[in-house]
C-alpha cells in the first residue's frame, strides 16, 4: 500500500495544510497592527486612558499571534525546496528575489521595531512607541506586498522568458512584481485582513458587552469594529467583484469552476447552489437564476461565458472545491454586510451598545473573517490547478524527487505538531481574552512609568506581561 502513496498529492495536502495554518496568523497581525496604530494614535490625541488599556490588552494577543506566524512561516520558507524543488529550480530566478524581499522585510520588522512595540512601553517616549507601532504595521503590509506579488505572478505570469533546462529568466522587474492580478489581489487581501480583525475584535467586545464586563474598553472594540463592518464590508464586495472580473480575463477556467458552468453559452444562468459533477460534466441539483451569470461577468444579459467543457479534462480545476469555497466566502461576506447594516440601524436608533441579540450575533461572527479568508484562498489556489505557474508549469511537474512515505510521515508530523502547538496558542489567546484589559491609574505623558526604568530590576506585577522584554 505504502508504495502507492502519491508524493504530488501528499505534498499538495501538506502545503495546503501548513499554508492554511500559516495564513491565519499574518491575516490577523496585518489587521491588528494597523488597528493598534489607530488606537495608540487616538490615545495620544485624546489622552483617554481607555485607548491605552485596550492597546495593552491586544498587543499581548498580537505578540502570541506574531510568534505563531513566525514559527509557521519558517516552515514555509523551507517547503518550497523540500517539496517543490523542481519549481524552485525553474522559477528561482524570478520568485527568489520576491520572496527574498519578503524575508528581508519581515526580518527587518521582526528584529527591530517589534521589540520596542512589545517591550518598550515603559522605556521609550510615547511618540517613539507610536512610531514603532506604525512601522510594524507598515512592515506587515510590506510583507503582504511581496508575498502577494509572488503569488500573483504565479497566477498571472508575465515579464519572463524560458531558457535552457526549462529555466525561467526575468525580463523586467516591474511587469513581474505588478502582474495583472496583483493590484486586485493585494487590495482584496489587505481589506480581508482588516475585516477579519475587525470582526474578531468586535466579537470580543460584544462578548464583554453581553456579560457586562470591561464596559469602557468593550465599547471601543465593538464600536470601532462596527465602523469597519458598516463601511468596509460593502467595499470588499466591490473589490472582490473587480478581482473576479480580472480573473475572468486571465483565468477563465477558474471562473467557470466558480460558476459551476459546463457549457459555453450566451445568457448564462447563475448557479446559486448545486453540485458540480466532474464525471457527468454538469452541475447537479442546480438552483439557477437565468442570465445572471452573464450579467455579473460581462455586464450584459446575453454576454457569452465560457464553460468548463471549453478546456480538456486535464486542464480543468477540481470544480466542486472551487464552487463551494467561493460560496462560503461570498456567503460570509454577505453576513458581514448584513452585520454592518444592522449596526447602522441600531446606531441610528441609539441601541448599538445595548442590544443583546446583536451582541450575541457578533460573537458568533467573530471567526467569520478567518473562514472567509481561507475559503477565498481555496478558490484562488485550487482554481488555478492543474498549474503551479498558470499556463507555464504544471503542479505535477513541480514536485521534488521525494517518494511518498517521507512526505506521508512529515504530513502526519506537521498535523500533530500544529494541532498541539496552535491548540495551545489558541488556548493562551482565549486566556488573555478572558483576563481582559488591565486597568491602572494612568498618568498622561508619563507613559505609565511608575518607577525608574532600570532594566535590571523591573519586577513584573502579577498577571501583567508587558513592559519587560
Amino acid at each position, binding site marked *: 500500500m505504502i508504495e502507492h502513496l502519491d508524493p504530488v498529492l501528499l505534498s499538495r495536502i501538506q502545503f495546503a495544510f501548513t499554508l492554511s495554518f500559516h495564513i491565519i496568523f499574518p491575516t490577523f497581525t496585518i489587521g491588528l497592527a494597523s488597528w493598534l496604530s489607530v488606537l495608540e494614535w487616538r490615545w495620544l490625541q485624546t489622552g483617554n486612558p481607555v485607548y491605552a488599556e485596550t492597546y495593552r490588552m491586544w498587543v499581548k494577543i498580537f505578540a502570541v499571534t506574531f510568534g505563531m506566524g513566525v514559527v509557521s512561516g519558517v516552515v514555509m520558507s523551507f517547503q518550497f525546496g*523540500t517539496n517543490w524543488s523542481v519549481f*524552485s529550480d525553474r522559477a528561482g530566478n524570478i520568485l527568489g528575489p520576491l520572496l527574498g524581499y519578503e524575508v*528581508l522585510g519581515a526580518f527587518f520588522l521582526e528584529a527591530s521595531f517589534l521589540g520596542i512595540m512589545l517591550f518598550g512601553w515603559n522605556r521609550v517616549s510615547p511618540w517613539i512607541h507610536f512610531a514603532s507601532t506604525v512601522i510594524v504595521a507598515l512592515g506587515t503590509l510590506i510583507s503582504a506586498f511581496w508575498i502577494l506579488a509572488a503569488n500573483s505572478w504565479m497566477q498571472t505570469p508575465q515579464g519572463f522568458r524560458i531558457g535552457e533546462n526549462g529555466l525561467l529568466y526575468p525580463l523586467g522587474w516591474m511587469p513581474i512584481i505588478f502582474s495583472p492580478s496583483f493590484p486586485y489581489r493585494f487590495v482584496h487581501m489587505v481589506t480581508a485582513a482588516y475585516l477579519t480583525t475587525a470582526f474578531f475584535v468586535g466579537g470580543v467586545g460584544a462578548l464583554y458587552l453581553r456579560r457586562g464586563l470591561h464596559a469602557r474598553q468593550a465599547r471601543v472594540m465593538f464600536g470601532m469594529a462596527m465602523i469597519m463592518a458598516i463601511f468596509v464590508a460593502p467595499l470588499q464586495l466591490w473589490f472582490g467583484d473587480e478581482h473576479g472580473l480580472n480573473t475572468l480575463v486571465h483565468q477563465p477556467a477558474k471562473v467557470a469552476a466558480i460558476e459551476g458552468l459546463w457549457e459555453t453559452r450566451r445568457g448564462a444562468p447563475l448557479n446559486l447552489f448545486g453540485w458540480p459533477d466532474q464525471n457527468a460534466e454538469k452541475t447537479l441539483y442546480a438552483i439557477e437564476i437565468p442570465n445572471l451569470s452573464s450579467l455579473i461577468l460581462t455586464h450584459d444579459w446575453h454576454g457569452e461565458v465560457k464553460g468548463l467543457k471549453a478546456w480538456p479534462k486535464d486542464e480543468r480545476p477540481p470544480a466542486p472545491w472551487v464552487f463551494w469555497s467561493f460560496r462560503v466566502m461570498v456567503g460570509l461576506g454577505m453576513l458581514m454586510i448584513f452585520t454592518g447594516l444592522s449596526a447602522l440601524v441600531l446606531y441610528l436608533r441609539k441601541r448599538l451598545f445595548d442590544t443583546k441579540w446583536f451582541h450575541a450575533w457578533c460573537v458568533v461572527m467573530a471567526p467569520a473573517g478567518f473562514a472567509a479568508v481561507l475559503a477565498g484562498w481555496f478558490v484562488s489556489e485550487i482554481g488555478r490547478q492543474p498549474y503551479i505557474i498558470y499556463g507555464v508549469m504544471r503542479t505535477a511537474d513541480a514536485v521534488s524527487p521525494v517518494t511518498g512515505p517521507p512526505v506521508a510521515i512529515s504530513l502526519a508530523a506537521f498535523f500533530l505538531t500544529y494541532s498541539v502547538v496552535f491548540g495551545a496558542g489558541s488556548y493562551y489567546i482565549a486566556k488573555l481574552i478572558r483576563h481582559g484589559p488591565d486597568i491602572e491609574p494612568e498618568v498622561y505623558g508619563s507613559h505609565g512609568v511608575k518607577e525608574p526604568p532600570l532594566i535590571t530590576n523591573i519586577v513584573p506585577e502579577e498577571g501583567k506581561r508587558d513592559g519587560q522584554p
Partner: protein
Amino acid sequence: MVNLEGLVDVPHIWFGLIATALFLYVLLDGFDLGVGILFPFAPSDQCRDSMMNSVAPFWDGNETWLVLSGGGLFAAFPLAYAILMPAFYMPVILMLLGLIFRGVAFEFRFKALKSRFIWDYAFHFGSIVAAFMQGMILGAFVQGVHVEGRSFAGHPFDWLNAYSFMTGVALLFGYALLGSSWLIMKTEGITRDWARKCSVYVMGYVALFMVIVSISMPMMNAGVKELWFSVPNVFYLLPVPLVTAGLFILLWRDLHKGAQTRPFFLSIGIFLMGYLGLGISLWPWLVPFAFTFRQAAAVVESQSFLLVGTVLILPVVLAYTGFCYYLFRGKTSNEGYY
C-alpha cells in the same frame, strides 16, 4: 533591470553573505539551543528560570537568521536550494518541528502555571532535535550529495549513517559549550558554578569531535586531502588547527581561573575556526561535490536585484541586533523578563 555584474562579483558576494548569515545563525541560535540542551540538568527550578530569562530577549531574533539563510539560499542559489532541501527532507522537517516546539515553549512557559513542566520538556527536546538534525545535515552535507542532472537523485535516507550520527552528537556538544559559556557570562551563583562545570565537561568532547572531523574529512575525500596537505597549502593552512588548539588551551585556563566573560568569546572563536576549516575544505562547492556556488547561482539580474535591498537593510538589522545585545548586557536578573 539592475545589473551589478560589471561592478562587483555578485555570486561571490552572495556566497559570502549567506555563509555569514548561516554562521551567525549557528552562533546565535547555537547558544540558546545549547541552553535548551542543558536545561533539565540544571540543579534547580530557579536556575532554569534564570537560564530561560538569559535567552528570552534574543531567541526569536536569533532564529530569523535561519530564515534569512534559507530564504537567501532560495533567492540567490535556487539550484542549491532545490537539490539540498529534498536531499535532507526528513532532517530539515524534523529540525523545523523541533524549532517550533522550542519557540512556542518560550512564549507559553511564561504564561503557563500548572502545565509549565510540559513546556520545559518541549523546550529541551525541541532544542535537542533541532541541534541534532542540524549536525546530521552537516555530516551528510560534507559527505556529498548524489545528483543527476539538476536534481537530487539519492535515496531518501542517504543522510542517515554513522558519520552523520557522529556529527549530530558533535553539534550537541558544540552547542552545549556555547550555551554553558553563555550562562557563565549571563548568570550568577549556583547557575554560574554549574555552567562552568558543564563547560569543562563538554569542552573535552568538543575537542575530540573536532579532531575526528578534521582527520576524517581528508580521509573521505581526496580533493580535501590534496587541499590541506599539499605543499605549500599546508603552511598557509597550518594556523587554522594551531589557533584552534590555542583557543582550547585558553578556554581551559579561563574556566579554571573562574573568568566570566571570555569563555563565551573563546567558544565563539572555536566555532569560527571549525566553520572556517569546513569552508576551506568544501570551497568552492555549494552542493558537494556536484555544483560550485557559481554553477548554482541565480541569473545575475536576479541576484543584483535582491542585493540592492540587502545592502540597505542588512546593516540596520546588524546594528539593531548589536544594540539589543548591548541593551541586555551584563547579568540577567532573576526576575522574569515577561
